[in-house]
């Protein structure tokens, strides 16, 4: 079992003929992801990486019955690509693209209210992977292994690091979800924790947060109400100064809000173990 994605999910790739889109589509196919097509305006009718290419998402959905999409288009076009996917009936939209203007994402979020069945992951995220079955995005499958640990994270490489440590310790993962480093994004920590809570195959969760915003605090509130999952949290950015954007557009402390300390406290108060370094996560989980 898993959340959001498994080996039977029919996936298309928006921007499949691009360099990034093509490279990662192959990686997705290697794992066994059911990639049923892709889109690239003007290239409809082509076959690329053994799957049909369509001009639009609506055409692709009609022909393939796809329900999920990975978006690899450049930032100026990404917001439109997300909305196009939702309007075409895609229910799992994974946007890898980095650097989408925040106002574009605010409009996207408003647009998605008209499509309550559509779930957006990202943008500016590594996507998600259900080890051994399928992935949408760029998380390397080599460092993952199937098992009972749900992993949700705002960061890319830090997620890889933790997944790799879990796998090395024999702790496989049910699904790994990178929710992204932008201030305005799709699924939140809280949303993903709710999904893991309902997945019988997930017994443990690891949350990798970072400074900025209060999504971690909201997830902690949910966990404080009682959870069957054994949870460990780690927060990156304790040393980050106020007012400086640390790489991710969302990783910024404003005033005294969004600090690592407040997030760690929220988790501790919720009875969630807090790892001080990523090395401690495995020990706290077992």
């Amino acid at each position, binding site marked *: 079992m898993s959340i959001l994605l498994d080996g039977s999910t029919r996936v298309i790739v928006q921007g499949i003929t691009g360099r990034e889109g093509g490279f990662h589509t192959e*990686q997705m196919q290697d794992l066994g992801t059911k990639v049923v097509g892709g889109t690239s305006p003007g290239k409809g009718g082509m076959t690329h990486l053994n799957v049909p290419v369509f001009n639009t998402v609506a055409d692709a959905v009609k022909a393939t019955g796809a329900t999920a999409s990975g978006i690899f288009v450049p*930032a*100026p076009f990404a917001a439109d690509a997300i909305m196009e996917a939702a309007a075409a009936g895609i229910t799992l939209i994974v946007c890898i693209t980095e*650097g*989408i*203007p*925040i*106002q*574009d*994402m*605010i*409009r996207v*979020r*408003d*647009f998605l209210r008209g499509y309550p069945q559509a779930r957006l992951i990202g943008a500016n995220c590594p996507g998600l992977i259900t080890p051994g079955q399928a992935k949408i995005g*760029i*998380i*390397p499958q*080599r*460092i993952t292994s199937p098992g009972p640990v749900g992993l949700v994270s*705002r*960061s*890319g*490489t*830090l997620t*890889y*690091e933790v997944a*790799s440590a879990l796998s090395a310790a024999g702790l496989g993962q049910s699904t790994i979800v990178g929710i992204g*480093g932008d*201030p*305005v*994004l799709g699924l939140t920590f809280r949303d993903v924790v709710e999904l893991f809570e309902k997945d019988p195959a997930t017994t443990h969760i690891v949350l*990798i947060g*970072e*400074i*900025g*915003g*209060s999504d971690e605090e*909201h997830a902690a509130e949910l966990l404080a109400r009682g959870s069957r999952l054994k949870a460990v949290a780690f927060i*990156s*950015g*304790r*040393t*980050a*100064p106020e*007012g*400086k*954007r*640390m*790489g*991710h*557009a*969302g*990783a910024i402390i404003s*005033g005294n809000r969004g600090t*690592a300390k407040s997030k760690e406290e929220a988790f501790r108060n919720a009875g969630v173990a807090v790892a*001080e*370094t*990523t*090395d401690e996560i495995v020990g706290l989980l077992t």
Partner: protein
Amino acid sequence: MKLLEYQAKEVLSTLGIAIPPGVVARSPDEAAAAFDRLGPIAVKAQVPVGGRGKAGGIKLARTADEARQAAQQIIGMDIKGFKVPLVYCESALEIEREIYVGFTVDRDARANILLLSAQGGMDIEQVAEESPGSLARLYPNPWRGPLDFELAQLVYDAGLGELARPLTTLIKRLYRAIPDYDALIAEINPLVVTRNGNVVAGDAKLEIDENAAWRHKDLEDRYGSVLEGDPYEREAKKRGLTYVSLDGDVGIIGNGAGLCMGTLDLVQRAGGRPANFCDIGGGAKAEVVENALAVILMNPKVRGVVINVFGGITRGDEVAKGVVTARDNLKMELPLVVRLSGTREEEGREILRQNGIEPGVSGWEAAKKIVELTSSSPLVGRSGQQGRGVAE
């Protein structure tokens, strides 16, 4: 990009918002000339941070001499780490009352929020804490902006009904900063009602989304170079790096923002002080590593560098070769510790060892190692010309 007050006011003025007459002065003489033109003026430090009034960055001038003196004192002053490059000399206002109005992004709501308060001139976060009831809020639809009736409700909620008409007009104009300029913050505080009943922007704050910089090249061209900023951050930007200067002495490079932030934390935990944040992104290509090292080594405080690369798809041996090449090209002799992990990581570590670079197996070990090396080594030559054999 955070615009300076005069820049924000120029932009707001193009949106049809009234601003007091004012001119920029880069010297005491220019400030005196501004007085001759405008009469009594406020001489205001131009820095992209709040609290300049308290820091002595705003002075009232009733004579040309006072204007000259004020500019003399303020230009070059340090306000919260920013050197004041110039002052804005603005006609002093006859204030009847002060109002707060501003748009900002509410991250929790994933929406823009409009705040209006009859208590202007104060820190809005303080107002929110002390008298939350006095703050009227509206989440405008991001496709069509605020509607007249919504704004009317907002104005009455804030207890500003007698100003309904001018405020509604002004807020609709201020809102344009969002669709037209990708503003993340568009704030007028105080919005001044003058003795003769005019509504003008007393101060203005505008922050433009860096992700949308490509849509607003004109703003960057016009305003981007006024503030000197941090020299290393400036150089890093030229080289296309994501870099933030900090005040310690251990240089840090990581691939991925989260991992890089995590490395800063580890160095601090090990007892060291990070000199910077530098994210070189996923691929960790040799050229990018070299650029990152070059910028970090410009900072004379740096006593050593730790590189933390977790390769997902990236190959460890290629990263190792890249690091060695970069170090050799830069003739770097300061301690260097590299933690790399990923495909072919053992081969990568072997390449590092053969070239006299300490490989760390985990980020934590690498952090401890660099702190040990930098706290014990004397600060000597940074390149082949100045000394030798510091590293390893």
